[in-house]
């Protein structure tokens, strides 16, 4: 696994889409209980397609770069596509091999996004 990879360090140091998204349809906060990392994700949809993603929080390079990369890469994806994504998808976007001890770090962004989409779905049901 190469945390030093150019795109990882770039997104870690200059995270894209950081901040609260006021017009968000839903948000979700996730914690990584073993390391204290924390992410809150905001999503704005256009129909069933992802329109905007932003996030707040703190964490390691893998977690933060992963979140930042997803916030760009998943625009235009459908709810169904995002809900079925898993570690292998995140790995593709990050472009590095992720060792098992960092799985939780890599997944915190995707899990928060999926959480936010679930919150939105619950809201729509009401």
């Amino acid at each position: 696994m190469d945390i030093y990879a150019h795109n990882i360090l770039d997104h870690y140091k200059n995270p894209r889409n950081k901040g609260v998204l006021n017009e968000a349809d839903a948000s979700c906060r996730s914690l990584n209980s073993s390391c204290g990392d924390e992410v809150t994700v905001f999503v704005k949809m256009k129909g069933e397609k992802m329109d905007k993603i932003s996030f707040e929080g703190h964490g390691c390079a893998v977690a933060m770069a992963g979140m930042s990369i997803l916030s760009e890469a998943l625009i235009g994806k459908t709810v169904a596509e995002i809900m079925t994504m898993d570690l292998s998808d995140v790995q593709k976007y990050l472009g590095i091999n992720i060792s098992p001890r960092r799985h939780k770090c890599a997944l915190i962004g995707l899990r928060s996004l999926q959480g936010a989409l679930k919150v939105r779905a619950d809201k729509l049901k009401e």
Partner: protein
Amino acid sequence: MLDYRSHFPLLSRRYNDKALVYFDNAATTPKPELVIEAVNKYYREHNANIHRGPNFLAEEATNLFEDSRKTVAQFIGADHKEIIFTSGATAAFNLLARVLGETNLKTGDVVAISQAEHHANIVPWLQLKERIGIELKYIKVNESGDFETSSLDNILHDKKLRILSLTQASNVLGHLYDLKTILAKAKEQGVLTIVDAAQSIAHHELNVKDLGADFLVFSGHKLFAPSGVGVLYGRFELLDKMSVFFGGGSMMSEVKEQSFEAIEAPYKFEAGTPNIEGVIGLGAACRYLQSIGWELITQQEKELAQYFLQRLKEYPFVKLLGGENNRLSLFSLVLEGAHPHDMSDLLGEEGVITRAGHHCAQPLHESLGISSSLRASLAFYNTTLEIDYFFEKLVAIKTRLS
């Protein structure tokens, strides 16, 4: 100086063609050959359940197990009847919280701990809060790691205080607490006292009678023994009166269809087949440390701590949590420009084993205003050369990350 490294098979492990620098002793210590051999021998030669079976294997195993109880008792200055073997410090805390909660506490009673506690000395009390409505109060810890005097006084004067449960050393701040006077004050008011010795046990000589604790807990795996075994020490007169926790085999003198009678302490707290090889390993670990001697262990660790603190001053981007006084050779660091998790991972790639996170002390990290730290925890067998290597790699990684 003797080369203690050769006593520990783990330390000859190489990774990425680099020597192992084991700076994670607060999480778990490596095991000396003697301990591994004791566990191995039990399975190869004895392998019997204890306290039952009229055959020679059972007798040998029982003797080894009970010899360990005596060794551990002597190791901490207790009587062997005051040593309960548990699966670890966490199990010991849960036993105490449940049994004392059922018999000694009622709604509104106060249990006090400090902000420097491990989750094992927090959550069981929070569970009691949920179950019977006790109040959990915290003694504040200041920047240098000490208990805040006014906060401590307030709690000691609380008329509803029933249990005071404190750590002898913080697993984050590395601060060693002098609990003797505090415990004596609590005792004067009839408050039960519990000491968490999980972090201190492998670094300083302990005498429970001199310390004056009613109960004391620790885990074997932080004391060079196998994991899955720990100790609950309790003053015999208290253990004798306490009701049992786990029910099952070997803790009863008689079981009828509708009733049972428990045997005497400490055995009444050891239901079921215990971690026999773990207990035997724990006895071997205590004997190993005694063969080295406390004088040498504390002197060696003091020198390591002084050297670490001295080297630390060269790096302004590294902030140490807690003060320098009364410190174990345990250092939690916050690094400007590098997340602890990345640093720990990348140090590992250089052969340096550390830990990152909140080290099961989330309330403490919250009170310090941080979410995680990088912890380097040393033991007597570590060397100043290893400390040099640690800082060399720390700087190199930080430079690449920022």
